[in-house]
């Protein structure tokens, strides 16, 4: 046992875990900064500038403040579930990063069913929201939770279905293999990314992913102007921060997944000295994710939100049939060739 604990594989594994989770947690905090800054620019204003240079210390101040804020548990709330909910929301959201390949070897665990693992674990997140909304024993959170569970269940369907086409082409569920399958180019200049084979699936995926993560224009569960704060109205202090972190973590996960499934993950031109070749894939990967995140923020700052029934209709009457048709056509083509 002790031997294993000091063996190089274990130490490497630990280093990866610490590195990846540290990086993820840090980027989650800075996602909030990015979002505030980008939105500010869209809205013709500077955004945070006072706390640290360019407001860079803002997320740290916010986080610290939450740590030292009074933690209120409403008297009518179900105490156990009320405390459990943010944990249930945050842990699965973070767990999914364990199978995401940030680079050729930069992956905590390359499960052979990595994709399934992610889908399984992220769908647990909705329980956090539902429990939180229900345990608060208050009307707005309850309505937020109801909206969110309905929404997440519907969109999860189209989200999962949209990637079936990709899987049929790649013939694997391992995320690492999915990426390596997309290496290389067609005709020497078009990268062999799945987006070119599965454009419809890509669009469906992105739309459902935004809905999955409760972001505008699908942020009905939270919708400030209607439900005050949605499911987390009654949460304060660190618990609220945990919900927020979970939301951003989910955003990151779906963007990472989109990159892996459709945009070739960490693949990209490699050049320069050895050390550069080592880090370039990770840079490509992070770069592609950033594009998604940026897109998310832009959407949030331009679009109005759907109404509840319109949202459901959109999922069941538009996205789902489209995803099914996509699967049908893909399987036909795969069968013929």
């Amino acid at each position, binding site marked *: 046992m002790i031997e294993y604990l000091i063996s190089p594989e274990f130490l490497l594994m630990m280093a990866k875990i610490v590195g990846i989770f540290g990086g993820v947690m840090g980027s989650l905090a800075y996602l909030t900064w990015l979002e505030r800054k980008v939105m500010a620019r869209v809205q*013709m204003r500077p955004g945070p500038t006072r706390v640290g240079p360019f407001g860079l210390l803002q997320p740290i101040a916010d986080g610290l403040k939450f740590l030292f804020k*009074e933690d209120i548990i409403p008297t009518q709330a179900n105490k156990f579930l009320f405390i459990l909910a943010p944990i249930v929301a945050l842990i699965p959201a973070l767990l999914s990063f364990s199978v995401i390949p940030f680079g050729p070897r930069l992956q905590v665990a390359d499960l052979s069913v990595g994709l399934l693992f992610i889908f399984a674990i992220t769908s647990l997140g909705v329980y956090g929201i539902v429990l939180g909304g229900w345990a608060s024993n208050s009307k707005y959170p309850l309505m937020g939770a109801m909206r969110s569970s309905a929404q997440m269940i519907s969109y999860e369907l189209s989200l999962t279905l949209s990637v079936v086409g990709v899987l049929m082409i790649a013939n694997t569920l391992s995320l690492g293999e999915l990426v390596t399958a997309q290496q290389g180019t067609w005709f020497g200049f078009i990268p062999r990314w799945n987006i070119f084979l599965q454009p419809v699936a890509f669009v469906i995926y992105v739309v459902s992913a935004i809905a999955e993560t409760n972001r505008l224009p699908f942020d009905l569960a939270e919708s400030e102007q209607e439900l005050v704060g949605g499911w987390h109205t009654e949460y304060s202090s660190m618990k609220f921060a945990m919900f927020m972190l979970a939301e951003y973590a989910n955003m990151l996960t779906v963007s990472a997944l989109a990159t892996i499934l459709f945009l070739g993950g960490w693949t990209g031109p490699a050049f320069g000295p050895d050390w550069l070749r080592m880090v370039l894939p990770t840079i490509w990967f992070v770069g592609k994710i950033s594009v998604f995140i940026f897109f998310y923020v832009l959407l949030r*700052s331009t679009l109005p939100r759907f109404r*509840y029934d319109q949202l459901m209709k959109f999922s069941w009457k538009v996205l789902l049939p489209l995803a099914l048709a996509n699967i049908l056509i893909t399987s036909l083509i795969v069968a013929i060739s």
Partner: protein
Amino acid sequence: MKAEEIEQKREHENFFTTSYSSLVNWARKSSLWPYPFGTACCAIEFMATVSSHYDLARFGSEVVRFSPKQSDVLMVLGTINDKMGPVLKQIYDQMAEPKWVISMGACATCGGFYRAYHVMQGIDEILPVDVYIPGCPPVPEAVLDAIIKLQQQVENDTRLSYERHPRQQRLKIPEVDATVHALERPPRALVRFLEEKQDVQGPIASLFKERFPDDLISMREFRGDLSISIKRETAKQVLRTLKTDPDFNFKMLLDVTAVDYLSERSARYDVVYHLLSLSNKHRVRIKVPVPAEDPTIDSMFDVWKSADWAEREAFDMFGIQFKGHPDLRRILTHSQFVGNPLRRDFPPGQRTLCTETVDLPVVERARKYAESMGLAQPQILNMGPQHPAMHGTFRLQAAVDGERIVDADTEIGFLHRCFEKMSETHMYWQVIPYTDRLNYMSAMMNGVAYAMSVEKMFGVEIPKRAQYIRVILSEFSRIADHLVCIGTNLVDLGAISNFWYSFRPREEIYDLIESCCGGRLTVSYVRIGGVANDVPADFITRARALLQSIPKYVDDLEKLNRQNRIFKMRTSGITAISAEDAIDWGFTGPTLRAAGVPYDVRKWFPNYDYDKFEFDIPVGESGDVFDRYLVRMEEIRQSLRIIKQALENLPEGPVQIDDRRISLPPKKGVYSNIEDLMNHFELIQDGIIPPIGEVYSYWEAANGELGFYLISNNTKRPYRLRVRGPCFYIFQAFSHMVKGGYLSDAVAALGSLNIVAGELEK
């Protein structure tokens, strides 16, 4: 331990705790998330602080949370009245420690100039306040300054853990304000004037005499206003005929109110109806005397729906019972209020403690209904008054079935600031600042409408230049008002950036207004008889520059939204209202025009050369949220057209009328001759004293017809000043319009109606 050692140890501890606490304090001060408890005009200036010109986000304070649990600073923005007190207290109690309170504006700090029966004289009656911001309203810079001050306070705070705030206070019984104004001379002369018999000619008058010879008490025409007194017993039939008979065709009931003549008249009260016939372009005022011993009259609710709230208000303010009214409750004052404040013998400063917020009738209705149908207990959802979509002051209580609203009721009065009582206790020119705070989105227009009513009482016309200045600035205000309405409406739909896009041109308009009078929001620029001073020399250039820049912003907004599928889905067909219903409810302004009725005071009853300007009245078809948006957008363009023409033709000349009853004599005269000196003295001392009479004057404000019904007793204070705010009539239909729709529709609809609390609740 020796004393030295103890000292040393303590220092050591201090070292650790100070660096630790300074870290915590740094985090706290850098992340002050506000809870905007916005109620009135100050909230609008707070919104300006968030907008691009000032950007509160720089301090890390832009994360406005509407859940008290997640915010750090309670920003009290605007007047808090007795009805709102318990709500404010509750929100404060729900906030997590550490928490701070900023009191913005004179009202929140000390009641401002509302020393009145329903206004809390400063929130420190119930809350501990950390920073006070002076001003009415404070400029955005002052708000930023307050945030910095608070940051300094937080930085120097030595407490590590916060227990519940030690300074928390209980609600205490308000004292009666000692500055109660003495009653004016009894209205003897006024009553004599009103009762004097007059033989009135004219189409409506002769027709009326012919049709209702027995019901008529008297008739009088003053400054072109026809007013008819009729008997109480048959009032309902007469009024019904006036509505349905095609010869009269008074389809719209503009206003219902009452007047108190004390014991000077055998029947103490008059219930006053203002009617408008859209097809004949006629107006008439019907008055029904009601005695003090039996203050009852038939309700007109089943004739015109618009009588609903107005009658409730007359009940609340005068204690007049409207027989047959379906829901006669207090409307503006709180449920525990004692007395009828607009009676002349009610002391203006007499407050009553309010400790509770009551359920609305919908709760009982829904419960009964569920019982009779054998259903489960209904789900009741309370929205507001402190709900982000309810703009801080309205309350909607709804019985919901999932996301659908089955039944709903609205409650108002959380910003009732006693405008009418305040104007009765102030001199004519002192009323102008109060009018600014009615519809504070476009304060200029209220001032114009009020000044017009006093000018009408005098029967004078103001100089052309003053008229044009009023027109130009009013149209600019209309643009600003529409922009804010559209911006906030879109924010309620979730399209947040539109807030910044629409506030930007609005700020530019404010710069222009500020250059004329020094005020941004509450301008006090209008004077009876003209405007306060001439516009600055570069006025025309600045205004022209605005004419260039505003269309750009408007086009951007249009591009972003008009073709947006989601926006269309969220707005088309939502709370559509037919033209008949809209008229019946007393809608005016853009909401009425969106329903397809092209009624606009500027075209139908033009004054100030509006008949010479070329402009169109945009009308919608279905009266839904989308049409309201389109109408407002187009009105912005039309206003720009009007401004362009007015700027081209802006005449030279004085901006104040040359009438010694109204405006001060020139300084030269005051120093050189006794007549002017006396005149100056009298005007300063006694103010403007209009002749005895009563007039109703009206003006197309941004929300619709803004009317002032003024009764003068030939003293320096108005005997009665009634304001007919367009919002009041629009909002009463709200709870009916949202029934059957989704919750989100109610939110979308409210923003599109442009309800401004100051005007709605007076």
